[in-house]
């Protein structure tokens, strides 16, 4: 059985249907990419998965447990951490306080301290700026903070929404390096990206979304060579 099984998801904003029929699976240890044009429903899918939006139809099962109706703050405890679109760090809090917020569901002080040390090791810039207000960081640094904050909960699965959006090429490469390292350390990754080329290059498998439906799925390397994908998403 897959670690995450999403079946027949339908989601509405008022009367407007944003997700029509979304089904996908994520296996333990995989890097899965969700790609698709702006407005396809990627963010909506992730928000529904982590409990910020209610599903009208369909089910979400994580490690055998139905979490479709579970409130967001309980889903974190299940082991899913969400790095939201636009980073959404707490700009008035310091870098350190943001990271501590990431460990909100953790009780063990020693474990939190260890996590913090690991995050600082992974993102030395965050340690340098730990007392700085998050709002004063650059976009790339905020993205690192958002990722570090998510890792503070020791997640089994990390869900990332457009981590490379608006970043300079140097930062984009750095962020993708980090995603690969996070994956190598055993965390399952679900990655939403408009930068399809980059996403497919590090993913095991991928799903393509179009106006609320999954229209294509398969092995990431194969999708990279698919003509329709090349034309629509890779700009070739």
């Amino acid at each position, binding site marked *: 059985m897959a670690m995450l099984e999403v079946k027949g998801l339908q989601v509405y904003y008022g009367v407007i249907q944003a997700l029509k029929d979304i089904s996908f699976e994520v296996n333990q240890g995989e890097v899965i990419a969700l790609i698709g044009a702006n407005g396809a429903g990627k963010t909506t899918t992730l928000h529904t998965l982590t409990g*910020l939006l209610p599903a009208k139809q369909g089910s979400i099962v994580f490690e055998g447990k139905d979490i479709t109706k579970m*409130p967001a*703050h309980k889903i974190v405890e299940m082991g899913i*951490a969400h790095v*939201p679109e636009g980073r959404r760090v707490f700009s008035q*809090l310091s870098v350190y306080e943001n990271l501590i*917020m990431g460990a*909100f569901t953790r009780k063990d002080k020693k474990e939190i301290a260890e996590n913090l040390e690991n995050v600082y090791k992974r993102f030395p810039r965050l340690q340098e700026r730990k007392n700085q207000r998050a709002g004063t960081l650059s976009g790339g640094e905020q993205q690192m903070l958002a990722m570090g904050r998510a890792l503070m909960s020791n997640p089994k699965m990390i869900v990332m929404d457009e981590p490379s959006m608006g970043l300079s090429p140097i930062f984009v490469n750095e962020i993708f390096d980090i995603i690969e390292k996070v994956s190598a350390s055993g965390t399952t990754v679900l990655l939403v990206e408009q930068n399809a080329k980059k996403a497919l290059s590090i993913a095991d498998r991928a799903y393509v979304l179009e106006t609320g439906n999954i229209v294509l799925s398969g092995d990431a390397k194969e999708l990279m060579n698919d003509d329709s994908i090349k034309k629509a998403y890779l700009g070739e």
Partner: protein
Amino acid sequence: MSFVQFLINGISLGSVYAIIALGYTMVYGIAKMLNFAHGDVIMIGAYTVLTLLTGAGVNPWLAVLIGMVTCTVLGITIEKIAYRPLRNASSSLAVLITAIGVSYFLQNIALLIFGADTKSFINIITLPPVSLAEGQIVLTGTTTVTIIACIIIMTGLTLFVNKTKPGRAMKAVSEDRGAAQLMGVNVNATISLTFAIGSGLAAIAGVLLCSAYPSLTPYTGAMPGIKAFVAAVFGGIGSIPGAMVGGILLGIIEILGKAYISSQVADAIVFAVLIIVLLVKPTGLFGKNIQEKV
């Protein structure tokens, strides 16, 4: 009376406004709503304490404690029954109208239970007055206790918000509710806690207010409630130090206005100052500049 004496009286009244304004500002910051029933919670607190004192002869400290618990429970209940169902309402006007409705509801409940006649509050503050400058300046026991209470509450609340886990959760919810949920913060519980704290403080404000101005009617909370709201906006709504500074400045302006200009137009002066401040700095004295997100 001397200027310094008026100033002290102003700080004392302003301290009460500050304590009430804290409730307004915290609820606004975290639940993003104006709880216009907040002033009436003060009145309920004062009636509760007075009833315990005169009707049951309860020890004053215990009476205040029970008053705080009563208001805390009342605040949590109001939020749960009246405001929570509207949390995701598309119009914030619905919440505002509900809050005004709750305010009238509380006033009418008080009318029903305690009657419309003015009750005279028993001052439970037994601290003796202090004379300074050869009797030129008098610090009544009530003044001293009010100012000290305000300082303790401010300090305690600032420490709570900055140094404790539930406090940090409040800051996180106030900035980005969705992101706070993704961290594992229970938003409903956090909002309940905010109402609990604000309402508990309202009980203290009620006792302090009625100790200084000992006449109690079902409408006693309304005007101080509005002024505290003004103080919160004045200081920058959502900001805890803003509520403190806004409240004290408002008290000083009101008392000085009454003393040197006219007691009839003192309230008008208060609102005029608010308008001027908001024209110059729309976010209030301590208002955060909302940063553009990149």
